[in-house]
């Protein structure tokens, strides 16, 4: 599709060899190395898509995982775009995702046979928690924080509920005891009365037992009185307990009220302070995100200042991760958000007509030719004036930060000086300072000579890592990068030389 001949950028790349487009992807790294060593091009020009495209082979294991994911009934119910997005976030390439989508409608044979169906189910169930968690987590990473807030609130409820339950049970038992004791007492008294009646009936002629009866009656009366006293004592005790419960409850409530009062006092104090310090608001995730669900009214022509809740304006700043805190917003930001949610419009908005008065107005002619960039080798940017405007000089003056001294020292390379003194920062990386190379007459040749070395290094590393990519062993990759980190320091040396020579021939050329 791409015709490389047509896409010649204005900067002077020599045309890439046409046979590059025919080279199969597997040998592209090799061809890159060849090109680099042949100093025909100043920049790696071979089809740029070869670097910016996936050259990895399709990974079958990833496709299998994707198929399991896509075959899950719950996933089948979700929109296709979400499924693709999930697989992309898991690191599958486009080709792998397409292949998985192609295969999923065909029921994989393993799921049909009963013997392997269990394996299929197990595999699906293992994929399921992984799949569901990210799917659930992705659209709503914020659910966790409301839950956390909910949990903290839960403790209050817990305490209040517990005290209430205790008080209620105490009162209930007291009432129950009252209700059950009184009938029991009554029945007991009745029984005694009955016994008294039957006894005198039986001993009708026992006149001398009158005294005994009186004594017995007195005893019974005293026993009854003691019982009554005991019961009333118990009732008093339960009443006291109830009172204690209620006192505790009121005490707790009073404590809470006091805390809230102190909080509001603090907030008022903070509001009273001058406005240099950013305001801290009680982090309220719901307010922050509540407007995400609010709908946005469509625009009408010209009346752009219509009130509409910018539903995703609260998404800028975008939603924070669930585990870290929301950055403290300025108080006035929260004011405006709450104002909009209430339906009010901030009063400082003006009606402005910002449409072009003449949509066909031609652009004015440019007065200056486009300048080349510092990273286009061999073409130095025009440092127009070395008048000594403050913004052109790199000032080695050290500032408060420890970092700043190293940074300042590092950048001490005034355009007209050739610095050979290495700042302390570089001592870490190398102890030997290369001598300044002589000024270069032909910049292009110098670049051509210099560039292949770092290029070859990079390409060798790339080729090596490409060979091993099929293994997909994380450990290997990490060790590889630590190795390349070691090589990286050499690259720093090379680049330092490059930059210093660039600066050197900036100064004679820049006028």
């Amino acid at each position, binding site marked *: 599709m791409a015709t490389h001949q047509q*896409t010649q*950028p204005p900067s002077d790349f020599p045309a890439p060899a046409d046979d590059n487009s025919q080279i199969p992807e597997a040998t592209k790294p090799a061809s890159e190395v060849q090109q680099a060593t042949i100093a025909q091009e100043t920049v790696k020009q071979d089809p*740029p*898509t070869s670097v*910016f*495209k996936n050259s990895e082979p399709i990974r079958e294991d990833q496709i299998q995982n994707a198929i399991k994911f896509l075959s899950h009934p719950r996933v089948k119910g979700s929109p296709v775009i979400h499924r693709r997005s999930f697989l*992309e*976030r*898991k*690191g599958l*390439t486009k080709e792998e995702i397409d292949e998985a989508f192609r295969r999923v409608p065909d029921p994989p044979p393993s799921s049909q046979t009963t013997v392997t169906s269990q394996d299929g189910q197990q595999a699906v169930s293992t994929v399921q928690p992984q799949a569901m968690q990210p799917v659930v987590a992705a659209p709503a*990473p914020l659910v966790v924080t409301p839950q956390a807030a909910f949990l903290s609130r839960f403790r209050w409820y817990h305490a209040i509920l517990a005290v209430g339950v205790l008080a209620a049970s105490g009162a209930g038992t007291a009432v129950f005891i009252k209700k059950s004791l009184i009938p029991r007492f009554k029945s007991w008294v009745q029984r005694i009365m009955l016994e008294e009646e039957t006894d005198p009936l039986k001993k009708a002629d026992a006149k001398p037992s009158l005294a005994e009866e009186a004594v017995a009656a007195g005893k019974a009366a005293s026993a009854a009185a003691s019982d009554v006293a005991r019961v009333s004592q118990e009732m008093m005790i339960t009443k006291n307990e109830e009172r204690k419960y209620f006192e505790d409850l009121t005490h707790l409530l009073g404590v809470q009220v006091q805390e809230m009062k102190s909080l509001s006092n603090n907030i008022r104090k903070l509001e009273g302070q001058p406005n*240099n310090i950013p305001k801290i608001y009680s982090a309220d995730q719901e307010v922050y995100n509540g407007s995400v669900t609010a709908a946005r009214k469509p625009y009408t022509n010209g009346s752009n*200042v219509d009130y*509409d809740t*910018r539903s*995703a304006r609260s998404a*800028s*700043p*975008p*939603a*924070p*991760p669930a585990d*870290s805190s929301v*950055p403290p917003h300025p108080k006035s*930001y929260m004011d405006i958000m709450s104002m909009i949610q209430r339906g009010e*419009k901030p009063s*400082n*908005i003006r009606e402005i007509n910002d449409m*072009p008065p003449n949509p066909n107005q031609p*652009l*004015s*002619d440019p*007065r*200056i030719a*486009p*300048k080349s*960039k*510092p*990273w286009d080798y061999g073409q130095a*940017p025009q440092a127009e004036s070395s008048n000594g*405007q*403050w913004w*052109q000089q790199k*000032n080695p*003056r050290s*500032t*408060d*930060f420890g970092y*700043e001294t190293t*940074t300042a020292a590092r950048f001490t390379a005034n355009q007209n000086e050739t610095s050979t003194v290495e700042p302390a*920062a570089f001592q870490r*990386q190398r102890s030997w300072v290369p001598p300044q190379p002589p000024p270069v007459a032909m910049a292009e040749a110098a670049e051509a000579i210099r560039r292949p070395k770092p290029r070859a290094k*990079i390409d060798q590393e790339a080729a090596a890592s*490409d060979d091993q*990519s099929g293994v997909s062993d*994380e450990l290997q*990759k990490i060790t590889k990068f630590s190795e390349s980190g070691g090589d990286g320091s050499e690259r*720093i040396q090379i680049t330092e030389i490059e*930059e210093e020579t660039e600066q050197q021939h900036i100064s004679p050329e820049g006028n």
Partner: protein
Amino acid sequence: MPVFKAPFNGYSVKFSPFYESRLAVATAQNFGILGNGRIHVLELAPGAPGVTESVAYDTADAVYDVCWSESHDSVLIAAIGDGSVKIYDTALPPPSNPIRSFQEHAREVQSLDYNPTRRDSFLTSSWDDTVKLWAMDRPASVRTFKEHVYCVYQAVWNPKHGDVFASASGDCTVRIWDVREPGSTMIIPGHEYEILSCDWNKYDDCILATSSVDKTVKVWDVRSYRVPLAVLNGHGYAVRKVKFSPHRRSLIASCSYDMTVCLWDYMVEDALVGRYDHHTEFAVGIDMSVLVEGLMASTGWDELVYVWQQGMDPRAS
């Protein structure tokens, strides 16, 4: 160091590729939630204020990003919250501006990037999940790239290959595209959370930095993109913008909601080489001058724009 106080909250700052002392600032009222916007064109000057405003353009909606044309020295392009893309010509009198307004995106336009090699086209990325390619002389977009499933926060051209660009999205992936291909050529699932920004290494065309809500900046080599080359920790909150230095191969600047601007050298063991905490609100915009080595600018929700030389304190006077 010069400081400019804007009436609205800052969103983006860009140095002009033609004039060393010129920069443009995109600002939005009410933190960009709802309100007008304004584009400031600033000039650095020797002497007391250090920076003055040469012209300002008001917009009905927030301006989220601004970029300078690489072909015309006086032209700048603005990304507006109502989904429009507007072109301004500073060489024309202010009432003649804007000279173009393209209304195609369905949602806010979040970022702009002008092609530095071809110099005839630019990209816009939007919350409507698409990236659009535009040419200055065409009344409509040339192409729309629709593959992301969430807001595309930034799209950046490759500095060496004029047809290749990268896009960073809230769907947690970075995609590499080639305008000659029908779809994306590479998908990098870079972070577990939204990816807010990306930028190419100017000296190594295969190296890409991404920054995310997960507070890290990661550096990737697209040739072996499964594992990042480096993970830069140090910010306390989401990292909003990341930028590779135009002058030093391994130097990266980043700004974050922790209100700091950090400098990193990803090839060094202890990568953090500088930290500036001059802002008092979210730092959301950062740029490094292509014409003057070491010159940086940043802006934030505290309505301030700072311009300073690396190694100096931005707040020093």
